[in-house]
C-alpha cells in the first residue's frame, strides 16, 4: 500500500503550529502516515499551484486548503472568491475556518481547561475573532505565543468538534477522505 500523505495548506505560522501540534492524532483519526502543514501566506500563487499539481501527481497524497472566513459574508462566498483567484483548487478540498484560526485554538478546551487557564468558558467559538481571542488571553500570559502553546496543551479534538462548526467540518472532511479511500 502506498505511503499516505496529507498536505494541509494553511495561511500563516499560527495555523501551521496548530496543525503541527495536532498532527499525531490527526494521522490516527484520518489514516495517514504523514501530515505535512504548508504555510502559503508568503508563497506566490504559482508556487502553491505547483504544490497542488505535485500532490495530484503523487501516489497516496491528498490535500486540504484551509482559509479564514475573514470579511466574506458566508462560506460559499469565500469559496467562490478563492476559486476566482486560485482556480486550480478543488472546491471540495477547501476548508473555511470560521471565523479565524484563533477560534479553533479555543474550541478544544473543556470546562476544566477553561477554569484552569482562567478563561470565561466558550460553548461556541464560531465568533471568536483575533480581537476576541486577544481579549480572552489572561494577563499572566505575557506573549500570545505562550497562550497559544498553553491552549494546545489542553486541546481535545472531540471537544473542539462540539465548540466550532468549521472545525467539525474539517474533521468530517478528513473522515470522509478516509472513507473514500477505504471503500472499494
Amino acid at each position, binding site marked *: 500500500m502506498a505511503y499516505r*500523505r496529507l498536505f494541509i495548506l494553511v495561511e500563516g505560522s499560527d495555523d501551521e503550529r496548530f496543525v503541527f501540534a495536532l498532527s499525531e492524532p490527526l494521522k490516527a483519526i484520518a489514516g495517514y502516515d504523514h501530515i*505535512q502543514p504548508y*504555510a502559503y501566506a508568503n508563497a506566490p500563487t504559482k508556487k502553491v499551484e*505547483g*504544490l497542488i499539481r505535485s500532490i495530484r*501527481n503523487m501516489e497516496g497524497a491528498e490535500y486540504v486548503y484551509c482559509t479564514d472566513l475573514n470579511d466574506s459574508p458566508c462560506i460559499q462566498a469565500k469559496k467562490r472568491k478563492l476559486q476566482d483567484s486560485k482556480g486550480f483548487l478543488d472546491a471540495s478540498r477547501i476548508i473555511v475556518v470560521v471565523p479565524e484560526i484563533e477560534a479553533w485554538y479555543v474550541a478544544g478546551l473543556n470546562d476544566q481547561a477553561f477554569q484552569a487557564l482562567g478563561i470565561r468558558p466558550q460553548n461556541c467559538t464560531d465568533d471568536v475573532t483575533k480581537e476576541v481571542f486577544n481579549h480572552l488571553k489572561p494577563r499572566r500570559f505575557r506573549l500570545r505565543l505562550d497562550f497559544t502553546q498553553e491552549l494546545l496543551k489542553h486541546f481535545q479534538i472531540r471537544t473542539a468538534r462540539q465548540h466550532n462548526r468549521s472545525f467539525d467540518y474539517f474533521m468530517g472532511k478528513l473522515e470522509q477522505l478516509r472513507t473514500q479511500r477505504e471503500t472499494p
Partner: protein
Amino acid sequence: MLPFIRAVDTEKFAENSVLMTVQEDFFADRMLRAHLLSDGTVCMTALIVALYFQEADVIILEEPERCVHPQLISRMIAMMKEAAQDKQILVTTHSPEVVKHAGLESLLLITRDEAGFSNVSRPAEKEELRIFLENEMGLDDLFVQNLLAI
C-alpha cells in the same frame, strides 16, 4: 568575489598566531589588518584559501554563507564545485540559497528522529521530490517549507 582587494598577506602575531592583512583599492598605500575588515571579507578570503591553496583531500565548511551577500552565494557555490574536482568538500548550511545552488544531487539532509538520533538521507532518491521539481517548485522552496524530508 572581492573586487576591491589587491593583495592579501599575513604577519606574525602574538604567540604563534598569524594575522591576515589586505590591501584595498581605496587604501593602496597601507595594509589593513583583519580586525578592520568586514566579517564577510574575512570569511570569503578564508574560504578562497581553503578551497584553492590548502593541500587537503577533504575540506569541511560550516555555514560558509554567513556574512555573505545572497548575490554572491551562487558564485561561492560555483567555486566550491570547481574546487571539488580534486577534493571532497563537505558543507553544512541552513541557507535556502546554498541549497538551491548546490543542486539536488549534492544534498544530504540531516534530520532528527523521534528518539533524537540524526538521520542522514539523500533527497535525490525520493520520487516525491522529483515530482515537486517538475512542477516548478524550487529546491529552496522545498527546503524552506520543510518538504525535503517528506
